[in-house]
């Protein structure tokens, strides 16, 4: 069944072909998949949003964001190493992260999300990507800070090895990333204290390779970085 196959793909860093399994109810499949991780000792630390740009929604033929679960094992410390071995074809996206307290936004930080679809060549149906925990594979959160006035149009740069490869703005995230927070709260049925909400990508995703250094810089918020293992 699909949950076994996705879990095997995840743990062995191998791909599945789109269309090879019945997905059923995709969020139930996702929950079952994540529970396998929890059974191995991982812990939920937050949620992530996907399809937060109009372009991506149109590409998938939907008008609603999708969401997935973050675990502690996915976290890479700021400036730390992203291990390539357990990953298939990782890509990075510049994002902003929110810290949850009392169900509200307590702080904001620049962030990097690492996505790594278990579906061959990142080709999947909407149900398949939801079941695959929306391609979640890793994340880096920079320094938390108070939310500045207006986070709806902060410039965002994605750099690889010191060169800017993608340029965008937090406006690409649903027009204002705080809307992503509200969506996360609604879709996940509430958010727990100290959870992290990854709001969605501010630019297109970029594939990364061995030894590369990735840095995200967000206007007014600073940087988050990772080093890809050799």
């Amino acid at each position, binding site marked *: 069944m699909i949950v076994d196959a996705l879990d095997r793909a995840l743990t062995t860093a191998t791909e599945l072909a789109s269309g090879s399994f019945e997905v059923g109810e995709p969020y139930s499949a996702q929950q079952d998949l994540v529970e396998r991780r929890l059974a191995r000792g991982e812990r939920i630390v937050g949620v992530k949003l996907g399809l937060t740009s*109009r372009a991506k929604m149109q590409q998938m033929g939907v008008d609603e964001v999708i969401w997935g679960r973050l675990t502690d094992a996915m976290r890479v410390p700021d400036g730390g190493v992203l291990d390539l071995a357990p990953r298939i074809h990782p890509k990075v996206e510049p994002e902003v992260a929110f810290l949850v307290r009392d169900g509200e936004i307590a702080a904001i930080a620049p962030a990097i999300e690492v996505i790594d679809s278990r579906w061959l060549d990142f080709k999947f149906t909407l149900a398949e990507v939801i079941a695959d925990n929306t391609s979640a594979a890793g994340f880096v959160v920079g320094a938390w800070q108070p939310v500045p006035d*207006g986070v709806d*149009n*902060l*410039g*965002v*740069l994605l750099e690889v090895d010191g060169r*800017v490869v993608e*340029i*965008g*703005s*937090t*406006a*690409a995230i649903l*027009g204002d990333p705080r809307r992503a927070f509200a969506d996360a709260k609604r879709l996940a049925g509430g958010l727990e204290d100290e959870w992290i909400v990854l709001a969605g990508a*501010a630019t297109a995703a970029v594939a990364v390779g061995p030894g590369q250094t990735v840095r995200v*810089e*967000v*206007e007014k918020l600073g940087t988050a970085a990772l080093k890809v293992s050799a």
Partner: protein
Amino acid sequence: MTDAAAELLEAYASGKPVPPLRDRIIRAGDVDAAYRAQSAQVETWLAAGRRPVGAKIGLTAPAVQRAFGVYQPDFGVLFADMAVPDGAEIDPDTLIQPRVEAEVAFVLGRDLPEEQVTVADVLRATDFLLPAIEVVDSRIAGWDISIVDTVADNASSGRYVLGTTPRRVSDVDLRLCGAVLESAGEPVSVGAGAACLGNPLHAVAWLATTLAGNGSPLRAGDVVLSGALGPMVPVTPGASYEARISGLGSVRANFAKGAKQ
């Protein structure tokens, strides 16, 4: 007057675009010939009494460069009659195939040096910045342009809308400032300052150096549209576009429905 200049002037007059000039009238890659065709039109416009107020820089954003396969900036001349007040209606029928871009406008408070202008010179000479929407247009059919087509065509200029609240250059992070064009409450183009040759200041220094080399350096009072901060967006008649640039505020271009549509 060159054949290219004559064809382009006729395109303005008739509202009908012409086929690409490259390899038909101007040899592909002969940028000097293309600037000569631009100058011939500018001479005609000056003789007709149009008032030049500055310059625009084109082909500065990676997204725009990729779209046209042109990997160098260019410039055109801005005239006072191309300026549209913030929020005023623009009649799309007076343009051929308009597109909009969010940009930073520099207004100079003093003359720039007559050679090799640096970012420091630009910072010293800038009186204030304004958010701007450039309404670009092409007299070349289907926007099928190469570098010589757009250079000859006054860098595909059309109209421009300047915001009205000046900001000091020291108060804006020109590299990191977010930029978004919104229409009907949706972002239709996003970017940041770095999309303009790494920083709009680099673009202005390039322009100032280039114009100084041509013997017509930028002067106090000149307005410079420094280049797009994100992908250009084709105009929908009847639509309203608001550009917001972080630290600079916002500016709006409204398009009438137009009789042609």
